[in-house]
């Protein structure tokens, strides 16, 4: 099979980009979308042209590095998988495929299809952690966790932080990502001490990064390669609401150890 690619090319952050059209060489239907790009790039390299820059790492759907908006949908036509596990057999021979980078103010473009998703890291740094005491590792089963909570926390923890939710959202909102991170720690006993502080800190950092707000369109959930549920956004809204009403903790004079 052969396809025609309409790819966004942009030299760097500061230059303006445009679409360029490329004809692919003969492809195998069992190639992944990224392997197809590899083959096209080989062809470009032999012709002496600059290869198309795109993000990729594990290529087995667990690292969250690959991105791409393929024909208007982040991670391509299928539900619940990332670009790296989208195969060329999902397209027809002779198709024209439009490939764009993730677009958001908080995801500045670096080159071609590569964007900078460090804003997600900064949100994680703001509160996506738990306090762990030093000393010997405690026994893994010493803290009982109710099974439904453990299951829900696991669902939220599936988030690979790829940013497809932001790319799909008409408001470029990062709510689904932030909600997944807040929920997966907030559901576990180990995450309780910082639960409300975490929700406040992560949402505030999200606002600071310039992501949009939620209109509950459900695009994020529809494109998420890990099928994270919008329910988690409601959970985040609950925790953040409690944090807002409480406000910043006031220190007690002479309290604690002195």
């Amino acid at each position, binding site marked *: 099979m052969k396809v025609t690619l309409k790819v966004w090319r942009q030299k760097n952050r500061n230059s303006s980009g445009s679409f360029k059209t490329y004809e692919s060489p003969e492809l195998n239907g069992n190639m992944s979308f990224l392997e197809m790009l590899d083959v096209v790039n080989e062809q470009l390299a032999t012709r002496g042209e600059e290869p198309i820059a795109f993000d990729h790492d594990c290529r087995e759907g667990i690292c969250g590095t690959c991105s791409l908006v393929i024909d208007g949908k982040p991670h391509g036509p299928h539900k619940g998988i990332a670009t790296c596990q989208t195969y060329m057999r999902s397209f027809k021979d002779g198709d024209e495929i439009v490939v764009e980078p993730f677009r958001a103010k908080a995801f500045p473009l670096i080159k071609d299809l590569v964007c900078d998703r460090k804003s997600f890291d900064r949100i994680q740094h703001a509160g996506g952690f738990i306090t762990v005491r030093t000393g010997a590792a405690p026994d893994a089963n010493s803290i009982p966790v109710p099974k439904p909570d453990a299951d829900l926390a696991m669902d939220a923890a599936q988030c690979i932080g790829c940013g497809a939710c932001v790319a799909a959202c008409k408001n470029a909102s990062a709510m689904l990502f932030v909600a997944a991170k807040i929920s997966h720690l907030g559901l576990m006993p180990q995450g309780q001490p910082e639960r409300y502080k975490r929700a406040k800190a992560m949402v505030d950092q999200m606002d600071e990064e310039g992501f949009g707000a939620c209109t509950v*369109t459900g695009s994020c959930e*529809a494109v998420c390669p890990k099928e994270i549920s919008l329910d988690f956004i409601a959970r985040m809204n609950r925790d953040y609401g409690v944090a807002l009403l409480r406000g910043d903790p006031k220190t007690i004079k002479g309290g604690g150890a002195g």
Partner: protein
Amino acid sequence: MNIVDRIWNSSLGKKYLMALTGGALFVFLIGHLVGNLQVFGPPELINGYAHFLKSKPLLLWGARLGLLACVALHIASAVTLAQLNAAARPQPYATPGAYGASKASQYMLPTGIVIASFIVYHLAHFTALLPGVNGVGDFSKLTTTLHGETVPDVYAMMVLGLQVKWVCAFYLVAQALLFMHLSHGLAAMFQSLGFRDHVWWPRIECFAKAASIALLIGYSIIPVAICLKLVGSDYVERKKYDLKAANPQPAPAFVAAQGKEAK
């Protein structure tokens, strides 16, 4: 930061405001519909109801100001959030996006703008009674006698006002867009406030659909029935004659002066 600043300066805080004010306005819509549906009864019913509301000025103005505050907050949050959202994606996609999103959820702002302009018209039409906007005449001259008192004839005003075809059409367009706005907004309101899980979400969506359809039907049958002359057309025949015969196209100020002299 105090709590007002904390809420206003956060994207989630504004979503809470949108949801709470939207919820209050939804409750008003139910009450307003119950009031309006009385037009299907005898004229004394809705005239008596209107007179009852007018006879409690403190309650009436409390409710009016409360509702206006809700509308103002709802619009202010919507506008600031829309600016935030627009700024969050400076460069749009070349391909149509919003995958998996319903049309209603994508067009909350446009439907809201039309509904807001309808509210302004509706207030000018039936609350401020501006003669220039209704295409009939000066509604403030329509009076009737109820238990020996002279009271505004709300029944005649509604019938005469909605018999005008373009007014009826605008009311119906506004109702259709309100339905679209509510079919998404009523469910999203619960999501914004955090009331949602995998068990309750299908029920909430079902409630949103049912409530928005009920309001659409309830609010649409009034202008449709009046425009098709199924309600009160005999009653207003004489009123219409009064309205036109007494003052052949006078200026509003002149009408008011004349009305006083006639009494």
